[in-house]
């Protein structure tokens, strides 16, 4: 059990919850239990479903006894959330660990020692019919080289420096020695899709460019939208390959899933995948949720971990 917690804790550093220093003066801490705690003075911002998600508000209360004074719906780790945190409309936010704006704004990621947030390792989800040995080898080679810091650095290029995702993908593949032309995937026709956020587009481009170099015939279907839209597309074969995050896709396919450590999540995921789909080896790169605060908020209340939010003020 201790072993499990350690793994999960390590994984969970990937998930950042950002808290902002400003604007908490107006928060009314009348709601719910936990009054008098640091969290009760703060407003949390995040996606609409975070209120009910197992690792959202309920998870924070269950694992840490943390309940925020107020929850404000912003967006899913996007510009609305970042700006709300920066401008003080919210004091803490649910962001993603590879988000370059965390570093750019000196936000502080609160650690998640009790692994409230599940692992979110990047992995390819692909239709069985298209997963030839050559395709698997090519994609596994990518997963072997991908880690959280590396992915974060690529995201700086795409989001902060506005470089094109396909150019960034090509450059990364050649840096990693993965762009050598080959024939491993020749003759395979694949439609590569992505969800509608920049990191997923970038990952789809990395898969697409690597497979192209191996002779596959690729068509792209980027920015499809949310899982509600693209999982059916994977099932009916409109899309053959997508970059996914093991924790999120598990939660989507099995809302009662409890696994949080990367390997447990991976094992659980195998059991709930639709029949025509498989997932390949997962990478070390994690893009998980995290509670993030501004540097000033972290300093004001002495916050380093989500648990610190439950301290009495």
């Amino acid at each position, binding site marked *: 059990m201790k072993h499990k917690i350690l793994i999960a804790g390590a994984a969970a550093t990937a998930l950042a919850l950002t808290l902002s220093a400003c604007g908490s003066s107006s928060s009314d801490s009348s709601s719910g239990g936990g009054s008098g705690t640091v969290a009760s003075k703060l407003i949390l911002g995040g996606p609409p479903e975070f209120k009910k998600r197992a690792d959202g508000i309920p998870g924070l209360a269950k694992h840490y006894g943390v309940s925020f004074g107020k929850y404000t719906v912003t967006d899913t780790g996007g510009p609305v959330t970042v700006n709300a945190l920066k401008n003080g409309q919210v004091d803490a936010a649910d962001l993603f660990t590879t988000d370059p*704006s965390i570093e750019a704004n000196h936000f502080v990621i609160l650690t998640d020692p009790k692994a409230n947030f599940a692992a979110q390792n990047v992995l390819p989800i692909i239709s069985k019919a298209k997963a030839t040995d050559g395709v698997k080898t090519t994609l596994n080679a990518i997963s072997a080289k991908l880690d959280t810091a590396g992915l974060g650095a690529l995201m700086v290029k795409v989001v902060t420096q506005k470089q094109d995702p396909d150019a960034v993908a090509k450059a990364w593949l050649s840096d990693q020695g993965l762009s050598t032309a080959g024939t491993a995937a020749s003759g395979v026709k694949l439609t590569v899709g992505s969800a509608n956020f920049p990191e997923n587009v970038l990952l789809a481009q990395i898969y697409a460019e690597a497979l192209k170099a191996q002779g596959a015939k690729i068509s792209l*279907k980027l*920015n*499809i939208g949310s899982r509600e*839209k693209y999982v*059916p597309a994977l099932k*009916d074969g*409109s899309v053959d390959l997508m970059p996914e995050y093991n924790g999120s896709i598990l939660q989507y396919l099995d809302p009662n899933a409890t696994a949080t450590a990367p390997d447990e999540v991976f094992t659980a995921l195998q059991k709930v995948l639709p029949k025509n789909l498989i997932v390949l080896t997962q990478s070390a790169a994690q893009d998980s949720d995290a509670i993030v605060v501004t540097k000033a908020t972290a300093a004001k209340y002495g916050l380093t971990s989500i648990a610190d939010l439950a301290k009495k003020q």
Partner: protein
Amino acid sequence: MSLLHAVFATADSPSSASSSPWHFFGYFLDHRSQDLSWLWTHTWLSVVPVIVGLLIALPLGWLSRRYGWLYPPMVSITGLLYTIPSIALFVLVPPLLGLSSLDPLQVPIALTVYSVALLVRVVADGLASVPEEVNQAATAIGYGRARRLFAVELPVAVPVIAAGLRVATVSNVSMVAIAGTIGMSNLGQLFQIGKDLSTPTAYYPPIVLGIVLCVLLALVLDALIILATRLMTPWRRAVPAK
């Protein structure tokens, strides 16, 4: 073009990642083939539904003109279609029609619904705008009902119908962009990209480019309809005899 580029470039910081709204032209040059292919799909996605919509609206509009009691229910029911939010319709069309969830047809089908909604009333009103003397004159010189409809009533109704087509076309241009948010490739993708890259600060070039191209497309299509209307109604330019 290079001069134009230079003008825009000077209004701009030298960085290729400039987020100045004026950088949209540089952004266009950097992503020309992608943007042009989006512009092309955007164009046919805007035009085809209007044509199909008109073909459906003609008989419906004629029916509601021919049988007066049909007019109120027909116009209000088709008009109601227009109030369905477009994003809902895009998402609903594939399961309702048994299309695969990313079938590119879902967008033109949904937009056809809106075009019908706008055009049924326009066709009925257009036919109603034909002066009764004209109809009687046609009948008097031996035109049957069908021939009178195609040779007299519809041509005379062209200006009214064309006015409706202009509204339907231009509103389609803006509605197609919404389909960009569900991954359909058209100029709407530029807004998605602009939103995604607007962190930590706003990134205008793709958004401004999307607006500029949509407006240009709408103006061009509008002008084409005006031109076609002119060609189809030469009698409207006839000079009265002295």
